[in-house]
């Protein structure tokens, strides 16, 4: 009983922090930051889902999560510019992402199964850097245009922020996936097997489940998530540059995942939105501008995200929606 209360109390604290933030924003007159937070944070959240998935299953921070998406994006661009219809090009991109995920798992992760996690982090970083280098090689470091799948830009307007069809698809996808994956890991046999394999690999093998097959499945799924994030989110901006997924999305996604609780899939979305809100608030709030009361040298949003991260982790080391270990 007490444990239940404590668990609920944990969730309540998380919700409390979020509520306090929302109220503060309204008071400060920056409620639009909420909208922008959801707008941009959903992209971070989708990448974060892939990060959380890998972390839950193998304890690795998958540095290549961004570039799974990058590969999908490049493939989409290449196929589409060769005249292939957009839908097929998207599928092609997702397939490419999954192939990269498979290759990464087979070539890099398998041999390092027993290695320290920091070695794996560095190895996935190597994969990401290699993927980016290859993109630079082929695209000469230059950006490329990429059209939206759905051209309508003003389907919904919230607080004078127009939300395009593309963006609505992104938000929808993240929400659905977060819930589905959350249920997957708690209710389905396969999901539970994955968690089990990460915590007790020997026992899992003894029960007859192939840990290796699970690992492959997880990485391919994570790659698919990364690919989805890229092909849905990036075209909304109209263009991409080599390495954009890693330089623009990986670190906020990492922050989002940690804020939400590295073990919580819905938390990834919440974390993403939180990062988006903080970035937007920091950019617009006049107190942080030159001459304001709290004039922050350089970019206010970086400092504010850092402070929020520290505060959340100090108050709740397992993240907003994470379970305490």
């Amino acid at each position, binding site marked *: 009983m007490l444990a239940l209360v404590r668990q609920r109390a944990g969730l309540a604290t998380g919700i409390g922090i979020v509520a306090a933030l929302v109220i503060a924003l309204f008071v400060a007159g920056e409620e639009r930051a909420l909208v922008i937070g959801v*707008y941009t944070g959903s992209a971070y959240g989708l990448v974060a889902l892939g990060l959380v998935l890998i972390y839950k299953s193998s304890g690795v921070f998958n540095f290549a999560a961004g570039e799974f998406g990058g590969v999908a994006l490049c493939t989409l661009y290449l196929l589409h510019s060769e005249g292939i219809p957009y839908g097929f090009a998207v599928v092609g991109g997702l397939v490419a992402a999954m192939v990269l995920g498979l290759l990464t798992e087979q070539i890099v992760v398998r041999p390092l199964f027993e290695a320290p996690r920091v070695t794996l982090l560095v190895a996935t970083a190597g994969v990401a*850097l290699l993927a980016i280098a290859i993109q630079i090689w082929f695209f000469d*470091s230059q950006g490329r245009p990429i059209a939206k799948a759905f051209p309508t830009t003003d389907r919904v307007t919230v607080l004078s922020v127009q939300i395009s069809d593309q963006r609505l698809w992104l938000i929808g996808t993240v929400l659905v996936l977060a819930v589905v994956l959350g249920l997957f890991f708690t209710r389905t046999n396969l999901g539970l097997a994955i968690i089990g394999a990460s915590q007790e690999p020997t026992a899992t093998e003894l029960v007859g489940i192939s840990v290796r097959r699970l690992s492959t499945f997880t990485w391919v799924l994570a790659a698919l998530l990364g690919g989805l994030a890229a092909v849905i989110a990036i075209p909304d*901006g*109209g263009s991409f*540059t080599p390495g954009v997924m890693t330089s623009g999305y990986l670190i906020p996604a990492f922050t989002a995942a940690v804020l939400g609780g590295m073990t919580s899939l819905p938390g990834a979305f919440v974390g993403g939105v939180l990062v988006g809100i903080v970035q937007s608030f920091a950019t617009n709030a006049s107190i942080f501008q030159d001459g304001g009361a709290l004039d922050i040298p350089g970019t206010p949003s970086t400092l504010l995200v850092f402070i929020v991260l520290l505060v959340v982790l100090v108050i709740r080391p397992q993240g907003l929606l994470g379970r305490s270990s």
Partner: protein
Amino acid sequence: MTLRRPLLLLVALTLVAAACGQKAGVAGTGGEGGGDATAPVVTAGPPVTAPSVGTTPPDGSTPPGTGSTAPTGSGPASTEPQVPATTAPPAAVYEPGDDDTVGVTDDEIVIGIHAPVTGASPIPQTSFDIGKDIYWQFLAENAPDQLFGRAVRVVFHDDEFNPQRAVQVCREMVEEDGAFLLVGAGGADQITACAQYADEQGIPYLSACVNQEDLADLSTYFATSLTYAEQAPLMLDQVAELGVTEIGLVVSDTPSFNDAFEAIRAAAEEAGITIAYDTRINKTAAEAEQLSVVQELKDAGVEVVILLSSPLVFIGLANQGVNQGFTPTWLGPGVTSGLNAVTNFGCPGVDTGLFFNPTPQLDVIDELDPDFRAAYEQFGGGDPADDIGLGLWALNKALGLMLAQTGEELGRAAFMNTLVSTAGFDNGIYSPLGFTADDHFGGTGAHLLDANCEQKMYTTAAQFVEVG
């Protein structure tokens, strides 16, 4: 292993160098470029009393009260009009040091250029690699005596869009490659850093100008285009022409742009234009920040936004704007934002872009200098001429004129003395440049480029828009 934030493209290349002796039209007959280049110095030149650049186009009329263009108070006799190019400029502001003739031999002059090829704002390297040599190849074939039998060799290093690295590569170019003079292709901070180094070493350093503050005191620095601050009146004139009275102002948040920010605000006040919203945006603004700024601009309801930022931020803002139904005219002192690479992937947002640029675009270059395309056909190895190549061509042409004007006894001091004592340099592509001992900001005008998403390129909306 570069993993920089938005890998940007396009760095300003243009290095405007002074041309000597050419009037705007005459330069078009570049076929006899060799002969013309050694023509006498143009008589009309910019009045040099004031530090700010207020120049009149070389239309043949002598500017008021300035028969001579000698640097004030420098002592020796000023250059007379019609002085033949072969005599050394008499004004001796610069004394030769021990390394005065580094990079100069009987056969060769070495020029060092640094530019970002990797890092936050990379140029397409292939364009650069080809473009940097074409003018010199052309010159060697068509006017080998212009430089007194010397060929020019260009060495190039990547500065990775990092000022610390820029100083490094500048040192390398001087100490290892033996560069005679240095050129900065782009990136205000890198240019400032390398210019400081060059100044300490007494090496001539030229670049398309960006900021003014940190460069104004350097004695070996020469700006080959208008600074951002100098372009402020031009921009505000354009605003007036667009018929609006309220604008937005977005400038990247880097100390180098402080003087530009202030200058634009001052110019707006003078012109009676209200700045409804202004902000200093992060150099590498993420989507959330771009969107926030766009929302604020939209709230302010402006139809024109003056923008001073990297091309990637421009593209981001413009496209976020399109998503939000906000499509103002984006006006700015471009250089990098005015490159076709931007229209290659920035459309549809960038369609309303209007940028000033030291060089015009490819659509008018044939009238100004038919040699350009011809040279590319001959020496370009099959690659089509592009606007980066054009920037390099113009730069090199100007450099060629400056080197020729210095004469056979080529040394760093002589070169710089020539720069400050020659009335004007006009390569026909840039607005004419003029330097004096007090004012090393040689730009006098710019061209206005208009983005065109249908053709996926920039077109030249106005040529030789000049200050004052």
